[in-house]
């Protein structure tokens, strides 16, 4: 029987990669283009894989140490060494040493592993970031990564899709972070469970790739499996010149079936903040009046050059509040170098911020900015769970780069207009 209804992007990519005619609800075994692991999810994958005693599909494997590197202590040094050893043993060229990489998702994007129509998995929940470039990408476990090292394929339940239609254009410093926080606040932290959020509409064209990446990055905070933007000229321009290999464009059919539909006018959005301890605990920033001890700018969510530019333009010529320490962590060496060349690092340092090289740092409470008992941080990262950034009584307020910078100046959560 031929089904004649149209397909969503997820249904198209998973059909193509499994050579089947798949629709939401079907389980398929699909070929993956790339599988990525990082330094904390890699070691389990390496052990599971070695137990198979078989050859690795080395060209499809990407190894990126980022969570606890540069090694924060001896156990993390041993762990990072495991990844290095695995890369050498299996002659895996896609290994990004400290100083040549950065946060895994940013590196995956910059190095051209991601392109429209591709199917990419990663043993990291924020692998969904790559949907910004119209790929189907999602987080998996370490054991599943090991299976991909050996077989290059994995099972997927084809997800239902929620359509998110965007119109208008962001005002001022309002950004992708404010949009995704607003969405999570509305649909809830499991509102997208097992589903794809597919972003379309005229508003997409007005969004930078950086903003799209921020949005796709955080769909997992609504439980979603993927967050996919329709590809346009901006996507093609971005991919051109960096993409590895060829790719095939994909777009949804007109008659595609969506489980629900949402619409947002970007021009009506305002600065948002997610209060502890849930990314769904969202309020307009102007309604939040909380003193802070730390401001963190970085991560795969908002550690890109555009984010650093926004923050630097707010901080330029000003001093960070005396009771606040600000930590700036570019998401990759490329971002770091660009920030250096544009003079942004100087702006941060002159304003009294601490600037480090790329790493996940305090985002997951690893190192470089871990919080003590009762301390509060306004952060451009994606999670504010209990103890995520350190002590169980510490608090994380999630916001976009503009609110992080404005708050650093004021010593409390603030929107940028107040500080200019």
């Amino acid at each position: 029987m031929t089904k004649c209804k149209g397909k969503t992007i997820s249904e198209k990519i998973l059909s193509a990669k499994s050579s089947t005619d798949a629709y939401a609800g079907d389980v398929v075994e699909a070929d993956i283009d790339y599988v990525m692991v990082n330094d904390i999810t890699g070691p389990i994958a390496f052990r599971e894989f070695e137990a198979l005693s078989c050859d690795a599909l080395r060209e499809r494997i990407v190894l990126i140490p980022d969570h606890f590197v540069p090694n924060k202590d001896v156990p993390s040094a041993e762990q990072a060494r495991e990844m290095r050893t695995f890369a050498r043993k299996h002659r895996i060229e896609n290994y990004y040493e400290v100083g040549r990489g950065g946060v895994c998702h940013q590196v995956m994007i910059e190095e051209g592993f991601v392109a429209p129509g591709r199917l990419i998995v990663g043993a990291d929940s924020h692998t969904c970031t790559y949907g910004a470039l119209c790929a189907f990408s999602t987080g998996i476990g370490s054991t599943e990564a090991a299976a991909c090292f050996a077989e290059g394929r994995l099972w997927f339940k084809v997800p239902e899709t929620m359509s998110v239609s965007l119109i208008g254009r962001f005002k001022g410093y309002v950004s992708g972070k404010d949009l995704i926080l607003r969405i999570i606040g509305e649909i809830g932290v499991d509102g997208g469970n097992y589903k794809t959020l597919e972003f379309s509409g005229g508003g997409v064209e007005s969004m930078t790739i950086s903003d799209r990446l921020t949005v796709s990055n955080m769909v997992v905070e609504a439980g979603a499996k993927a967050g996919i933007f329709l590809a346009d000229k901006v996507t093609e321009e971005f991919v051109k010149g960096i993409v590895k290999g060829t790719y095939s464009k994909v777009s949804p059919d007109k008659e595609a079936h969506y489980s629900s539909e949402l619409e947002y006018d970007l021009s009506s959005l305002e600065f948002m903040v997610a209060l502890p301890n849930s990314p769904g605990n969202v309020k307009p920033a102007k309604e939040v009046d909380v003193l802070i001890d730390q401001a963190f700018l970085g991560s795969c969510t908002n550690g890109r050059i555009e984010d650093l530019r926004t923050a630097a333009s707010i901080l330029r010529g000003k001093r960070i509040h005396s009771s606040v320490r600000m930590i700036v962590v570019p998401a990759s060496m490329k971002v770091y170098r660009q920030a250096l060349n544009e003079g942004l690092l100087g702006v941060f340092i002159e304003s009294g911020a601490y600037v480090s090289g790329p790493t996940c740092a305090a985002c997951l409470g690893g190192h470089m900015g871990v919080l003590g008992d009762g301390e509060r941080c306004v952060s451009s990262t994606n999670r504010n769970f209990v103890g995520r950034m350190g002590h169980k009584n510490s608090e994380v307020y999630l916001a976009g780069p503009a609110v992080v910078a404005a708050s650093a100046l004021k010593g409390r959560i603030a929107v940028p207009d107040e500080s200019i």
Partner: protein
Amino acid sequence: MDNVRGRAWRFGDHIDTDQIIPAERLTSDNMDKLGLFVFGKVNPDFAKNVEAGDIVVAGRNFGCGSSREQAPRALKQAGVSCVIAESFARIFFRNSINVGLLPIECRIEARDGDLLVICPDEGTITNENTGKTFAFKQYPPFIKDLIESGGLMARVRENRRCSR
């Protein structure tokens, strides 16, 4: 599948993997002792008092957040036999199957310490303290197969043997 009998430990909605096993424990030297640190930040009594066979009973979206497979591994190493939740975050659900921790989607009434008996083949959970029985849906065939064959790596091994 064998029946499972164990004491209930109640948890709420949206229990994230940072709570189940905090990031600072995610180094490979801890790989075989993750059970010692399970819920270490938010409920240190759990690791101290949990007994082999105990069952975690939770609300919606259990295991949300990070993809760390160390989360279901930590529960399993601590002796937990099974997690019953109203719903699961998808990566946690997949990981649980692969590490041999049974995830059961069901809404049940149970208090801390109640004795529960799970009959996977019948799809029922009985609370021995209250006498109430709850039914849960069978897994879809693909997932049932995966669980019965012992998780993904067992399947990969089987595939590779067949294709040789």
